[in-house]
């Protein structure tokens, strides 16, 4: 037993030392490559770019591919609303990374409005890229015990610390502000090969299967919902408005039972028009809007943002369960 206790102490000590290694923040983002380099761009856009951010779109690749920030900014300018719009979408779901980005936003840019993406359900896990860039305190910031990916994320965080030890001794250099693109929209030009503008019957689960799926979504959503509330509270404490943009997967676009009341209780919702999201020609695949879809959506988003930044949004009754059609009617 002596050796077992010593083993446990040695193991815990080594893990603690690894966890506490002060790997520089910028160096952590510099290690991101290929698709993950998008997160590095978002970091540099927030931290290094001199261009302000007034309207920040925060979310997953749904935002990254589906929100033409430059077009929205131009349309706002056409209405004499001079606001800088930034698409800060990062591939893959996971709210903890979005909270991290919002913290940076609050610290560096003080935006006027944050538009946070929502879809049919909250991911029950943390972001796959978060362990590469988070601090130890970020990992334990939220209700980590509800994060289904926590053990793997924590081990990945420790691995990042171990692998990046040489970065402790390397000088860090900020990105040149001139080299950072102001706009983060990444358009996808091709069209989904679904072949027609109707929802395939197979893509729309029905009856018991659908109810079971959504029951499971609700029962595993605690982690994500907790982090969304933290994002909302952080924004509120810093006098930043927050709105929720529903960017659905294609199969959900003609459904009316999507449960979004959590978000409706937290702030105004933006439901894209059916003419855009229920048309498969606007999708690059079953999940992401293509360039045409993003261009078709931009005028609507510009209208919504103009309304949100120029008027006080209508109060939303927390218990009311809105369907996308209801919300669309309200938006009209």
């Amino acid at each position: 037993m002596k050796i077992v206790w010593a083993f446990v102490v040695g193991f815990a000590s080594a893990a603690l030392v690894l966890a506490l290694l002060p790997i520089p923040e910028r160096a952590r983002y510099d290690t991101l490559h290929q698709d993950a380099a998008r997160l590095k761009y978002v970091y540099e856009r927030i931290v290094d770019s001199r261009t302000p951010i007034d309207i920040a779109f925060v979310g997953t690749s749904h935002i990254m591919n589906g929100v033409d920030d430059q077009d929205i900014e131009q349309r706002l300018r056409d209405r004499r609303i001079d606001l800088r719009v930034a698409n800060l979408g990062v591939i893959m779901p996971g709210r903890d990374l979005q909270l991290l980005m919002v913290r940076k936003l609050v610290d560096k840019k003080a935006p006027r409005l944050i538009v946070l993406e929502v879809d049919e359900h909250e991911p029950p896990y943390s972001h796959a890229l978060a362990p590469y860039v988070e601090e130890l305190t970020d990992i334990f910031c939220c209700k980590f015990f509800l994060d289904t990916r926590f053990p793997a994320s924590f081990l990945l965080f420790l691995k990042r610390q171990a692998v990046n030890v040489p970065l402790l001794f390397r000088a860090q250099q900020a990105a040149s502000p001139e080299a950072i693109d102001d706009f983060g929209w990444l358009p996808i030009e091709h069209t989904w090969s679904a072949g027609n503008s109707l929802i395939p019957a197979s893509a729309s689960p029905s009856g018991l299967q659908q109810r079971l799926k959504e029951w499971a979504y609700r029962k595993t959503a605690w982690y994500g919902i907790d982090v969304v509330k933290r994002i909302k509270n952080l924004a509120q404490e810093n006098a930043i408005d927050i709105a929720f943009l529903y960017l659905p997967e294609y199969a959900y676009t003609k459904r009316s039972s999507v449960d979004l009341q959590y978000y409706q209780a937290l702030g105004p919702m933006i439901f894209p028009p059916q003419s855009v999201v229920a048309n498969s020609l606007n999708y690059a695949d079953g999940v992401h809007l293509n360039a045409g879809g993003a261009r078709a959506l931009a005028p609507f988003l510009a209208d919504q943002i103009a309304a949100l930044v120029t008027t006080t949004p209508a109060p939303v009754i927390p218990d009311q369960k809105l369907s996308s059609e209801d919300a669309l009617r309200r938006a009209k």
Partner: protein
Amino acid sequence: MSFASYDFIFLFLPIALIGFWIVQRTSDRLALWWLSAASIVFYVQWNPRDVIVAGTSLLLNFLAARAILRDDRNGKVILLVAIAGNLLALGFFKYLLFAVDLVQSAIGVQLPGPPHVALPLGISFFTFTQIAYLVDCYAKKIAGRDHVFREYLLFVSFFPHSIAGPILHHRNLIPQFHGEFRRNLEPKLTAALILFTIGLFKKTVLADSLATVADPAFTAADGGTALSALAAWLGLLSYSFQLYFDFSGYSDMAVGAALGVGMHIPFNFNSPYRADSIIEFWRRWHMSLSAFLKDYLYIPLGGNRHGPLRRYANVFVTMLLGGIWHGAGLNFVIWGALHGAFIVINHVWRDRVAPRLPEIGFPRVRRAAGAIATLLCVAFAWAFFRATTVHGATNLLTSAVAMRGSDLVVQQPSLSFSLAMLAAAGLVTFAFPNSLQIHQWVIDRRIAGWRVASAVGLACGVLAAVAIVLVSRDSPFLYFQF
């Protein structure tokens, strides 16, 4: 689910071990069934289809062994048929495509392609294990009453050795099934913890880091790129150490996992790179395979009983077949032939040349020179073992000796990292006690005092933390492919 995976370390192994120690309180039989079930789960999760081949092989070999034990008159015929069946199955799954390729090249005619069948995991290992069992049945080393399905199933499928060895004899394992595993438990569990940790560290920290130096060099060489001499040597030496730490790390973890249920399985390595001759190298490298080849191939071929020339031929054939056992391809044939030639040269030198040379003294210097020469020969042959083509191997070896300029770039990690990893590998290989020695210390209770146990436990804890953190999802053990 490799040994070096979170699923194995945090899920499978704890459940298998804790379940075993709970169940064994009820009965030994139940405990053996539990281990068999765990072993089958471990095997099935790799590829459920493989269990059909492995299960059929196990069942047929069990029946063949029973028939050999019961039928004295036809025992030899049954044995030969069973061995032929095993080798045919191995040949079908492992060598058919290679054989067709060879025939096509020889006759210059395109033959209808044989069906592409996936190689069942561990087939080389469980086939050899079972052939050895059949031979031992025929040689009456196993009594009929000891041939019990429950024990045979666990002997063949026992998860610490089923995928990549060591190749076991029944006498290595089956006698421990009858309560032996409970004896001397504390040192066994201590050794289990230490060996599993050392093995994991060898794999995830040393082997996987060395792979980042070796892989780009071999990929470039296979692609026809001419490397600088430095890049080629870094690649060659890094692979030599990578393979050693990968396979010996696996073997340490296998021994550790088996000790976790109180059972000893044999060590497969005994510091082979410290060997001062190629003959000695093969006594220390993959020892269970060397023993198998010696007992079931070299000696039946005649061994050293028919004069030196026949002896050299037997050695060469044994090593050639040992090379082919590792894989279907010309590279493995060349690798086996090289080692056969090295051993023959070593025998000729030792028996014919060395006795006629004047005694020059300096035994340490001679041993060191022998060790360096051995390491160079082994590393030279590893080029064929690792490269995917013969051209890739010759390209790398040519680059290593051609002293070409450093403008021939390969995407290897930084030179300082590569050299640091090689230095660390050399230090662990040549300066540290090996797993076999550490195991002996534990068994001799030299790691029992409060201070020593605490120091060793602390060190193992630190090694385990680093090793677990560096576990990689995309790094299977190299010997799993054989």
